[in-house]
């Protein structure tokens, strides 16, 4: 097992490097460089422009530029924003990151709390009315685009009923302490449900089919034959085995969650990384676009790595060689 984990980490490193190369390549393909904007400015002397290019290393050979860029990235220096003059990309990202993190965790919590019990209950009562209801919900949850669901949620619960705010993270600056906490949760309810919907539907389907699979296996029949209570069969045998694929799924669904966050944040004007990303695309603010792309890519790679490692720990039956 340790051998596998070490090998898995070793594979992770070249993938990280190639990922950074792809993003660097895309950045190089971006039209112009930080100076083309000023080039049009007649007050700047072409000679000064050339000097500045030289000073920034833009005339160096591409591999050297890559190494310089990569070593800056590793130290967390993402350069300066082209649109928000004088602000570093890192500070803009750090400012928005917690909001996206909270929203993602909130959505994930909703997803797990809702989908797993429903999936288990459906599997234990297959083809019951509840099961059909859950299956129907699953079909809709996977078919409805999250931005449309978000708009419906705003229309019904924010505009018509007025139960929840339709945008932002917080009402104002006057709320503090515990009140602030609840206010933030209050703002996160609609975007959280919107973001969690697709995940809820797919985890639920997975959980149902996994539990159904496990329930029909021989060791469950043995456990029942021994006279084990239903409760113990469920917790000690069924769930432990059924959860294994769900863990892998979480590793992969992580990317879907982040992608979903980009759209969901846009619908709710939620000031997170997603809205920053889309605004930066509109403004052609390449340093921010590349930094966020790299950050999200690395996060996904780490998510997959952790899922794989965790998988090898919880399931000793799997042998890797």
């Amino acid at each position, binding site marked *: 097992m340790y051998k596998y984990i070490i090998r898995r980490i070793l594979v992770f490193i070249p993938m990280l490097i190639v*990922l950074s190369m792809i993003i660097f390549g895309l950045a190089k393909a971006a039209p112009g460089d930080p100076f083309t904007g000023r080039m049009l400015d007649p007050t700047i002397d072409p000679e000064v422009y050339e000097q500045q290019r030289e000073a920034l290393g833009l005339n160096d050979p591409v591999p050297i530029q890559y190494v310089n860029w990569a070593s800056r990235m590793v130290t967390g220096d993402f350069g300066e924003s082209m649109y928000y003059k004088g602000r570093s990309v890192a500070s803009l990202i750090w400012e928005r990151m917690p909001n996206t993190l909270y929203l993602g965790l909130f959505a994930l919590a909703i997803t797990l709390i809702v989908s797993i019990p429903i999936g288990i209950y459906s599997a234990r009562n297959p083809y019951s009315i509840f099961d059909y209801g859950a299956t129907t919900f699953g079909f809709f949850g996977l078919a409805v*685009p999250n931005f449309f669901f978000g708009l419906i949620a705003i229309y019904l619960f924010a505009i018509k009923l007025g139960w929840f705010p339709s945008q932002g993270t917080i009402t104002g600056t006057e709320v503090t302490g515990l009140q602030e906490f609840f206010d933030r949760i209050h703002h996160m309810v609609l975007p959280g449900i919107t973001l969690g919907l697709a995940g809820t539907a797919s985890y639920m389907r997975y959980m149902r089919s996994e539990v159904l699979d496990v329930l029909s296996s021989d060791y469950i029949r043995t456990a029942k034959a021994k006279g084990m209570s239903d409760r113990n069969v469920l917790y000690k045998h069924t769930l432990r085995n059924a959860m294994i694929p769900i863990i892998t799924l979480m590793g992969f669904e992580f*990317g879907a969650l982040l992608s979903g966050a980009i*759209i969901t944040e846009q619908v709710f004007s939620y000031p997170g990384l997603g809205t920053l990303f889309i605004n930066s*695309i509109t403004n052609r603010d390449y340093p921010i676009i590349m930094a966020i792309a790299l950050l999200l890519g690395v996060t996904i790679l780490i998510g997959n790595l952790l899922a794989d490692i965790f998988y090898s720990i919880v399931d000793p039956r799997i042998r890797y060689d």
Partner: protein
Amino acid sequence: MKSHRKIKRAQSPLQLALRRFIKNKLALAGIIVLVLITLGAIFAPLLSEHDPTYGDLLKIEKVPSDEHILGTDGSGRDNFARLLYGARISLIVGFSAMLFTLIIGVVLGALAGYYGGKVDNLIMRLADLILAIPFLVLALTIIALLEKVTITIFVTVIAVTTWPSLTRIVRGTFLSLREQEFVLGARAIGASDLRIIFKHFIPNAIGPIIVNATLMMASMIIIESALSFIGMGIPQPTPTWGNMISEAQNIRILRNHPEAWIPPGLGILLTVLAINFIGDGLRDAFDPKSNRR
């Protein structure tokens, strides 16, 4: 006495699959809905006399009337006409993106699974990398680099960023087929690589390929609408469902004109549901082990 018992002609796996498929009520309902939507899209000019791209600035955000069944949008364009023509774009983009992805996915998957070794390693690592960057981030980053987005470019961006999942499936099927004895037999009688791939591998892998292609078309339609919604997809004034819903980012339209943005949303929902039902029906039909229905 002569016996007149007729020997029934054996059915091919494809015929068996077709029989199982038409018995599936949900899938059949999906087909009917999809056909209706497609007919609406094809006969759009007959169903509405308005030009979906012409904006009458004197008639902005009108409520529904006899002339404009679903009112007009923020630029005075007829919503009903846009809904019908939008179905065209959504279906065309969804279908062509699926087809393009299918070609890349099957070709690369076939190369990786058939030849194995270095080719396999190269293709699959590339697939891993593309899968490592969240689809939306990659697609948006590429779109950010482009000067102008047209339908062709848009479809290409989607195909280039989504082929890996299909490639994985095709490769897996091919890898398992490679070890089968009938392949060895074919090779022994001197069949060429291409012949083996087209005559033996693809027909055996056709089930999973068709099922995944169908389900992929549904996600392509969602992707198109999501990107158009955030203004990074097919540019206005081309009518697409995503572009229509995009208008609801304006809180005034969201609040006062649900008739403008709910129909295209329902259009996406219905189309995607219909395609998913068809895909699930095909999966059950192609799976010989499936005993449902």
